């Protein structure tokens, strides 16, 4: 297991290195100038600006400096937002994103597990049909459509929540619900399939034969075993959440990193785009690694087969 983890971490570092390199050179190829009013600037001014941002050095030196900076957690300086260091920009904006993301994943997986389990227990009844219907809706309708619908009815028509404002818990409810729909649907679907499988197995029959009530059997035996594979979909769900957060944060005007990313794209703010790309990729790679290791720890069969493979 230790060897396996080390190997995975090695791949992780290699992956991140490639991502950082690719983003750096892609940014160098990007059209457009970082200075909003370059047309009005003299060549002298542009030179001074270039010098300030280190853009006058040859590309390989810029690359070297950038990579060395990354190791110290230095993502460079933003071109647009008052010359703030990118790391500061990210640090000041990651809070709201994390809060909404975590709330959404807790709400989504929690309700999803419940819905999936109920659907499996009441298989082929109207309960199952309703649950499946909700899962399909949640999977099909894009989260920004959900966000706008929630905003229109609950915030604008009924006035229950702020429309677009970041001020405390109440303003995080609607974005959380909008983001939670996709994880909810995925979890419910996955949970139902697993649960149906588990409920058909012999040990469940044994548990019932020993006189456990149906609910006891489900809670003690079936639920735990069906939960194991659900762990694997946390990785893909994290990706969905990142994508979703960009547009949901925009709709609800939340000062998070998703909103920042979209803003940076429209203003050609290369250092911020690069910093956020690397941040997103790191988060994703680390989440997937943790999920894989967790999965191996929870289910010994997986560990064995992966060790044989590697």
């Amino acid at each position, binding site marked *: 297991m230790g060897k396996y983890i080390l190997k995975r971490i090695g791949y992780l570092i290699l*992956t991140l290195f*490639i991502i950082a390199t690719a983003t750096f050179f892609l940014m160098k190829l990007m059209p457009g100038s970082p200075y909003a009013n370059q047309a009005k600037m003299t060549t002298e001014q542009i030179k001074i600006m270039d010098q300030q941002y280190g853009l006058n050095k040859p590309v390989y030196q810029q690359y070297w400096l950038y990579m060395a900076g990354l190791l110290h957690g230095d993502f460079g300086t933003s071109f647009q937002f008052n010359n703030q260091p990118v790391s500061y920009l990210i640090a000041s904006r990651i809070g709201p994103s994390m809060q909404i993301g975590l709330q959404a994943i807790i709400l989504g997986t929690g309700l999803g597990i419940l819905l999936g389990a109920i659907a499996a227990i009441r298989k082929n009844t109207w309960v199952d049909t309703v649950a499946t219907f909700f899962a399909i809706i949640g999977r*099909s309708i894009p989260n920004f459509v959900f966000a706008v619908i929630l905003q229109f009815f609950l915030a604008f028509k009924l006035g229950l929540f702020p429309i677009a404002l970041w001020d405390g818990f109440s303003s995080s409810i609607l974005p959380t619900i909008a983001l939670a729909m996709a994880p909810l649907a995925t979890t419910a679907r996955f949970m139902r399939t697993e649960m149906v499988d588990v409920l058909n197995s012999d040990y469940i029959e044994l548990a019932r034969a020993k006189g456990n009530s149906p609910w006891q059997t489900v809670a003690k035996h079936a639920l735990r075993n069906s939960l194991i594979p659900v762990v694997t979909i946390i990785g893909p769900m994290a990706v969905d959440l990142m994508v979703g957060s960009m547009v949901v944060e925009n709709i609800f005007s939340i000062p998070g990193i998703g909103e920042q990313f979209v803003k940076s*794209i429209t203003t050609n703010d290369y250092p911020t785009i690069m910093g956020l790309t690397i941040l997103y990729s790191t988060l994703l790679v680390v989440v997937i690694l943790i999920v894989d290791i967790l999965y191996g720890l929870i289910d010994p069969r997986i560990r064995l087969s992966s060790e044989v493979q590697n």
Partner: protein
Amino acid sequence: MADNLNKLKITPASFKTVTAANVDAQEKISTPSLTFFQDAIRRLRKNRAAMISFWLLLVIVIISVVSIWWTPSNPNAQNVAYANLPPKIGQGIPGFSGQANVGGRIVDKYAQANVPKGTYYILGTDYLGRDLFSRLMKGVALSLLIGLLATLFDLAIGVSYGLISGWHGGRTDNIMQRIIEIISSIPNLVIVILMLLLFTPGLNSIVMAMGLTGWITMARLVRAETLTLKSQEYVLAARTLGESPVKIAVKHLIPNLSSTIIIQTMFSIPTAIFFEAFLSFIGIGIPAPNASLGTLLADGQKAFRFLPYQMWYPAAVLSIIMIAFNLLADGLRDAFDPKTQE
């Protein structure tokens, strides 16, 4: 029990001799035998949700094809005098009467704008006076086109990558799988956005960006299947007879992979449509003045508090298309692989 036994009288006459000819008649398969595809389609037809989705999508596709040559009016023609007119089909139809609630008073917007009698905008007009129904038709067509093209990319790259990786195995496979691992660990969206920044936004760059990122799942599935298929006897036979790998792939592997490929394709179309809508929504997708579902939604969202109809219809159409594609894909998967259905 004993009564029954007494009643039951067995004489030699109760038995009938079976002749060889009789066996043939009894063993005859009376219904025509179905191929794998016919069988799958038979199963698909029994799935009501999938069939409704299929017919719905067919109608939507036909309408989009029509929109290439004909729309009720020019979707990009601006007429500011008729801006922001609510939907109107006829007098007195709720929601489609051309009236709007302005400050608590019901106002006939069409009369206010001096629209000639008989001119109706079924879904109203936007802030530039463009006919929303025509724009919606064009928008759906564009979104479907993007879904289709991105899927073709996905097919071309994913299937060939998976086949090569799975067929060669060994070191080639190892390297190719590591490349996939690295690409898949970068969020898709980040790659798409970087590509879009690099090229000018538009149909081509969106399709290319999505094509470059979307093939990973397809490649993985195809590789896994190829690994098991290539050790099958018929592939071995073909190899022994000196068939070239390309021919084996086309004649033996792809037909056997077809169900996997079809199912995955059906899932990648809605994903592409979603991505286009998403990119256009945040403003780096289809450039103005062309309409796509994403741009219509983005425009509608800006004014939704006062003119909600501008957003509801694109949102509804996008949702219907997504649900229908997902239901059809689910149906196809169950039809092609009945084992997954419990």
